[in-house]
């Protein structure tokens, strides 16, 4: 008898459990589904901002997190059930989805409101950043977070000893290099066994000499061939840094090509340093900090913007980031997009206790960042132009050839012509397939 009572009680509880959420769901709560690659603390950072959105609007944001976002998104799109919004890490994929008709226009080509008013974008982002979400004139995406890969790291004490200031032009950089050589010191350390450090060097030089448009024609569409004079000129500029390797690079050719990017940075900042300057992205700040806890950021190691070649081309920032793309046009989705673009939403995200990001929103006060993140944030938000890492814009086979070609260039800087011809052959084959 007791058993039967117990059974009925259990059934009752289960029925209640089933009914209560149903009742809640009917209670006019609005949901927006949000797909991202973020996990761990990155996700906590995003939640920190979205929780406030939910508190203010009552709209629940359901985050689906998956490292393999693009494959899953493609399957969901083919099946007709995409999420409401997604953070897409590649601009090429955004453009592809936009042209396939999957995305909701945020702002139309004539500047009229799509899902949101044009001001939502123009009030919060510099034209350089806003441009990244534009496909064929229509705004389909908003750069939600970004990082700079245009930071040159140096030791302020070493600069002071040499009597130089951070350079603001390429020629000033070469002058500092010469001053180090004259002082009998090795100016550079490059982690060339990770060939992407070399491709990053080249990308920064190329975009500074030729501007973002031609940069995309070289990397993304291959309208500019690798044998183009502009490529030769960029490599010749890079040659000013790496040749002769014996005096300019720590470890010479062999040392450079067998050193990874972290060791190369360590060579500049360890006590008996073997080199004075190091170029790689803003993320190096965190790596240097954790490798050398005794060093104080800004005072003991600092970064300057990869210097420009000419005033009219300026110093575009090369970097990476995630673009917010929208798949459904409900009003609550529009509210979420407005929040993701807002200064308040971005400031919360940039100041999250864990997983804080560098926000491309130009109204986020640089003072909210840690000193290291502020370097990155200042470069991103103030960029005259922002381009994604070129090697990520290339088909994988061409990207591989690009890295190998630059390693060969380090070894044989005199063979620019034949190296570029080989690379062009590889590229020509992989872009067309």
């Amino acid at each position, binding site marked *: 008898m007791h058993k039967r009572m117990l059974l009925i009680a259990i059934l009752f509880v289960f029925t209640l459990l089933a009914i209560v959420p149903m009742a809640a769901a009917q209670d006019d709560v609005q949901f927006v589904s949000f797909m991202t690659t973020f996990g761990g603390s990155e996700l906590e950072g995003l939640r920190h901002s979205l929780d406030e959105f939910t508190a203010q609007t009552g709209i629940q944001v359901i985050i689906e997190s998956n490292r*393999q976002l*693009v*494959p*899953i998104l*493609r*399957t969901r*799109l*083919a099946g007709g059930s995409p999420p409401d919004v997604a953070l897409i890490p590649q601009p090429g*994929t955004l453009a*592809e989805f936009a042209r*396939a008709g999957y995305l909701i226009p945020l702002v139309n080509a004539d500047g009229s409101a799509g899902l949101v008013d044009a001001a939502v974008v123009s009030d919060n982002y510099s034209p350089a950043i806003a441009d990244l979400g534009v496909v064929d004139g229509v705004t389909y995406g908003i750069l939600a977070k970004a990082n700079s890969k245009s930071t040159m790291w140096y030791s302020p004490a070493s600069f002071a000893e040499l009597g130089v200031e951070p350079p603001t032009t390429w020629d000033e950089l070469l002058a500092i290099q010469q001053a180090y050589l004259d002082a009998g010191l090795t100016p550079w350390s490059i982690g060339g066994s*990770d*060939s992407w450090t070399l491709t990053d060097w080249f990308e920064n030089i190329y975009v500074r000499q030729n501007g973002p448009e031609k940069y995309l024609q070289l990397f993304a569409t291959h309208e500019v061939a690798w044998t183009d004079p502009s490529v030769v000129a960029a490599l010749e500029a890079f040659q000013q840094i790496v040749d002769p390797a014996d005096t300019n690079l720590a470890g010479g050719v062999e040392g450079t090509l067998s050193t*990874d990017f972290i*060791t190369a940075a360590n060579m500049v900042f360890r006590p008996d340093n073997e080199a004075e300057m190091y170029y790689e992205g803003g993320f190096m700040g965190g790596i240097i900090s954790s490798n050398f806890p005794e060093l104080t950021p800004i005072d003991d190691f600092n970064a300057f913007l990869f210097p420009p070649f000419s005033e009219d081309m300026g110093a575009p920032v090369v970097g990476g980031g995630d673009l917010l793309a929208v798949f459904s046009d409900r009003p609550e989705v529009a509210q979420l997009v407005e929040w993701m673009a807002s200064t308040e939403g971005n400031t919360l995200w940039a100041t999250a206790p864990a997983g804080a990001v560098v926000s491309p929103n130009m109204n986020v006060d640089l003072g909210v960042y840690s000193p290291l993140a502020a370097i990155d944030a200042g470069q991103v938000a103030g960029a005259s132009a922002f381009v994604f890492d070129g090697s990520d814009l290339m088909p*994988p*086979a061409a*990207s*591989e*050839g690009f*890295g190998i070609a630059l390693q060969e260039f380090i070894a044989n800087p005199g063979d620019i012509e034949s190296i570029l011809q080989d690379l062009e052959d*590889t590229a020509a*084959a*992989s872009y*067309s*397939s």
Partner: protein
Amino acid sequence: MSRKNLLGWAFVFPAVILITAFLIYPTIRTIQLSFDTGLGFTTSEYVGLDNYTNLFTRDRLFFDIDQFPPRGAVFNTIVWLGLFTAGTVGIGLVVAVLANSVRYEVLIKTIIFIPMAISFTAAGIIWRFVYSPDEKTGILNAILVGLIPSTDPIPWLGRTDIVNVALIIAGIWIWTGFCMVILSAALKGLPPEVIEAAHVDGANSWQVFWSITIPMLLPTLAVITTTMVINVLKAFDIVYIMTAGGPRGASRIIGFTMYWETFQNGKPGYGSAVAVIMLLLMLPFVIINIRRYRTGEQGT
């Protein structure tokens, strides 16, 4: 008679439906997509043999014979076929034979078999830790740096010349237990009289192993070898979890290329062409295995 026929059809009907829906239709559809761009997973634009010719003439990450040794997913798969099959079957056989004659047989076999009980995803993650370039995380580099303090840790999964062997070792670790168990069971099923007779005739253990044990295990060895070959041809999980085909495509294998081109690069037609090639490569081994099962059934 006709009623008996009808009953027969009624019995196979559910199986026919299932096989048609989940095997025959998808195969035909994949072949169809392989002659198409396949954009959006629909037949959108017929491209003839373009996908196949591009795979073999333009895709350096799939098939590259311009340099020596040749590279690409096809040749990585060949390296896998050689090393992985030899490793799993060879080590499995050695362990099965050696364990057969010691007291702690169950313990040894359990330890070797444990990886089979872990999901392949988890096994991949475990090996990613083992190979970590940070010597505080990666046990291999910890040992290396511990023994020879002057060396730098080796990024096992980051170097194009090491990555494939590193992945294959992880694969062998997972699958050796399976081969060992099957071979061990076969070993126990061998008639002891033959082996005793050989010993009585003065054969030493080595001779018994090569002239008696191996020949009698041959049918089993053939079955697990073909099973391992099929395993390699369809392998995907280890590469996906540990390297995602990197660095720079150097550890791609055929199964991985199919997934990556279809879902990551959004070219279902191209990926389907890879799938069809996989199917053609696998077919002979599947047929061999089925034949062996059939003759086995007739024998009993």
